[in-house]
């Protein structure tokens, strides 16, 4: 076909334009700078998820020849088409669609978790809605908080189907589906089970795109305040790698602004007794994981070994591939390692009763909330981590405490769980964990210095990446996947005996934790993820030490407390187990 056959000529608001066949009216309009409002529509094609349910009709425009209204997000251009985006009919059509959605929507914006960050609210403002001319029958569904991670409030659902698109297409988990039809239709779990009873991985990708508060993280800020204010408790906190390159967005900084020092400062002002770095745990994870990998290679134990720091991914393998539970590393996640050490090593060092220590984590992640509640990470009633709040929740606490974030000084993390290397910084990006592990495994296996620590072939945003590294004459074959649909492919290969990898890194979220379900909302802008990712790699290069085993506080921990990497004590505190779960 000649290029000319693939091009379509049309007019939008009397402007002549030529676009490729198959383009939607919405995208065609964008080309000439016309911004048509949309609500249900979400185009994350770089991440493998495009929501085209076209059922809100907030984007309707007028087709001049036919005189009818068409949804711009779904209507494909045709030759000679004439579109008007701002006729009275089109504007009224959009208003009516929105008013219909608002008519049965709860109007408790003032106290809603999405207040000022809600796309429905923004749209009402944009369309200058001051009155709703319909009275809709209100829904009356129970709010589901059974998962401990996600709050599902179907009364706030506008049936945009973004969540099902993420869960089906990006994650291939399929937890949510519209049930029934017509007025009764509701996006729900199978058989209306509680979310906590389903195969939800709590990755939170549905949360990160839900335009309203129908899906949100289960807030824990009130509980955290209670712990901080209880002076009989020693309340400590830790901050994950990906938080420091995203939190700034909630205070007007550009995506990718690094605000580590300000975050530490803010946490001290909030009243935490000590501020630790999850990156310390990341370095520790690498030392344990690299030791485990070498042990598996040298003793012909099951390979590939899979990284285990992403709890959504752990949940996924336990439910979807229960026959493969010997492949993940037995290492706990960095948050759990730091948690366990805060109640043993740190408490003993400080002479504090471990029972009085409470650990709070600030995570880019919704799944970490559920991870903290895992039985395996709860020794004799003492949990590794007591409360998990997301990046968004921390921003809310800082605002609540009236702290002027932008004018905070930089402060350092506290001893003895506060140091980190460049290898830990990149944990928050897809490929970062395996790159960090390779740096350490190389030196452990060869006893020689690794001169060039940059394994650029492991970086990037491609869903599945493969590479190999020569170490001492052995080839280490490495696989990397992010988003669970890609993880599924690698796991199917392992199950069917077609996998040739020695080590695989898996992250559930797009781009890794930088795209986690607890991060500031990207509102469909994928460049935000890229900027956060680049900031992590930039942080790595500015660190004096860039290999996890060179972390002096980690070395001290082994010398004075754990003994060798992989020792019995290390296993007791830093490793865990997995169990098969039913797939629903």
């Amino acid at each position, binding site marked *: 076909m000649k290029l000319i056959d693939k091009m379509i000529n049309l007019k939008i608001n009397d402007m002549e334009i030529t676009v490729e066949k198959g383009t939607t009216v919405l995208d065609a309009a964008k080309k000439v700078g016309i911004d048509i409002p949309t609500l249900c529509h979400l185009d994350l094609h770089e991440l493998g998820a495009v929501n085209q349910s076209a059922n809100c009709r907030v984007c309707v425009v007028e087709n001049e020849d036919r005189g009818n209204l068409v949804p711009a997000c779904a209507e494909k251009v045709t030759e000679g088409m004439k579109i008007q985006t701002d006729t009275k009919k089109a504007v009224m059509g959009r208003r009516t669609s929105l008013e219909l959605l608002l008519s049965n929507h709860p109007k408790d914006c003032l106290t809603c978790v999405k207040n000022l960050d809600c796309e429905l609210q923004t749209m009402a403002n944009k369309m200058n809605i001051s009155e709703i001319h319909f009275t809709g029958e209100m829904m009356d569904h129970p709010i589901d908080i059974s998962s401990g991670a996600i709050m599902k409030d179907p009364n706030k659902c506008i049936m945009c189907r973004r969540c099902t698109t993420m869960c*089906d297409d990006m994650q291939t*988990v*399929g*937890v*949510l*589906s*519209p*049930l*029934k*039809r017509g007025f009764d239709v509701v996006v*729900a*779990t*199978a*058989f209306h*089970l*509680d979310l906590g*009873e*389903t*195969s939800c991985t709590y990755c939170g990708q549905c949360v990160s795109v839900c335009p309203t508060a129908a899906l949100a993280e289960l807030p824990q800020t009130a509980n955290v305040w209670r712990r901080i204010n209880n002076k009989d408790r020693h309340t400590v906190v830790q901050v994950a790698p990906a938080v420091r390159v995203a939190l700034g967005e909630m205070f007007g900084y550009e995506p990718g602004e690094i605000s580590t020092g300000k975050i530490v400062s803010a946490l001290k002002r909030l009243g935490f007794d000590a501020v630790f770095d999850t990156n310390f745990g990341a370095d520790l994870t690498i030392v344990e994981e690299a030791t485990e990998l070498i042990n598996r290679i040298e003793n012909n134990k099951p390979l590939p070994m899979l990284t285990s720091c992403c709890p959504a991914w752990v949940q996924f393998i336990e439910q979807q591939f229960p026959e493969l539970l010997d492949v993940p590393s037995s290492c706990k996640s960095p948050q759990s390692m730091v948690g366990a050490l805060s109640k043993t090593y740190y408490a003993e060092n400080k002479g504090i009763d471990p029972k009085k220590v409470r650990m709070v984590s600030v995570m880019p992640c919704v799944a970490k909330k559920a991870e903290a509640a895992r039985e395996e990470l709860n020794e004799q009633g003492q949990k590794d981590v007591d409360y998990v709040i997301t990046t968004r929740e921390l921003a809310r606490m800082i605002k609540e405490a009236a702290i002027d974030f932008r004018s905070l000084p930089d402060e350092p993390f506290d001893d003895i769980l506060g140091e980190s290397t460049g290898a830990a910084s990149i944990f928050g990006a897809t490929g970062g964990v395996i790159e960090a592990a390779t740096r350490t495994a190389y030196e452990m296996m060869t006893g020689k210095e690794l001169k060039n620590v940059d394994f650029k072939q492991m970086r990037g945003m491609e869903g599945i990446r493969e590479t190999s590294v020569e170490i001492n004459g052995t080839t280490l074959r490495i696989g990397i996947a992010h988003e669970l649909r890609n993880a599924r492919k690698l796991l199917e290969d392992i199950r069917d005996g077609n996998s040739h990898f020695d080590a695989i890194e898996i992250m559930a979220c797009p781009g890794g934790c930088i795209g986690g379900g607890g991060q500031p909302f990207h509102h469909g802008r994928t460049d935000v993820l890229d900027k956060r990712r680049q900031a992590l790699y930039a942080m790595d290069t500015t660190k004096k030490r860039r290999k996890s085993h060179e972390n002096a506080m980690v070395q001290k921990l082994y010398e004075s407390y754990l003994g060798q990497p992989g020792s019995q004590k290390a296993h007791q505190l830093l490793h865990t187990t997995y169990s098969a779960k*039913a*797939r*629903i």
Partner: protein
Amino acid sequence: MRKDVINTKDLEQHHLDSLDAYIDTLDKSRKEESLIPTLYKAQNLFGYLPHNLQWYIAQKLNLPSAHVNGVVSFYSFFSEKPLGKYTVSVCMGTACFVKGADKVLDRILKKTQTEPNEMSEDGKFTVKDVRCIGACGLAPVVTVNEKVYGNISAQQMEEIISQYQEEDND
């Protein structure tokens, strides 16, 4: 609740065997397309589609249970609850509705002492409200199993239900 869903012990084994045999004949690469025929088969075997049977089918076809449940709850043909001997379907399409289908439905529910989609206590009736069945010229329309009753009034319908009730008492 979850335990009930994943426990299939109460499903009759010989029916499950027939269902398995049927699923084995399907093209595995087209599991989405296989779903409706499989549900149809299962409902014929078991009479209805309890949650654990839907879960079982989801495992067999390697589909998420939510998708299976979504399809089952979308089509009024499928039932998640045991069906009475007679399925009484009252059309609630526009044509039937304007001719008083709601009154007909009310009367039937009263006469059979049931709620929509629930089986009556004697196991004889399940009353459903359904979408347009394409017989608008006969509005309002009610079907009892395969039999169609058109232009029916609430009073007439009550008598018809009585006949079904008595006929079985012989």
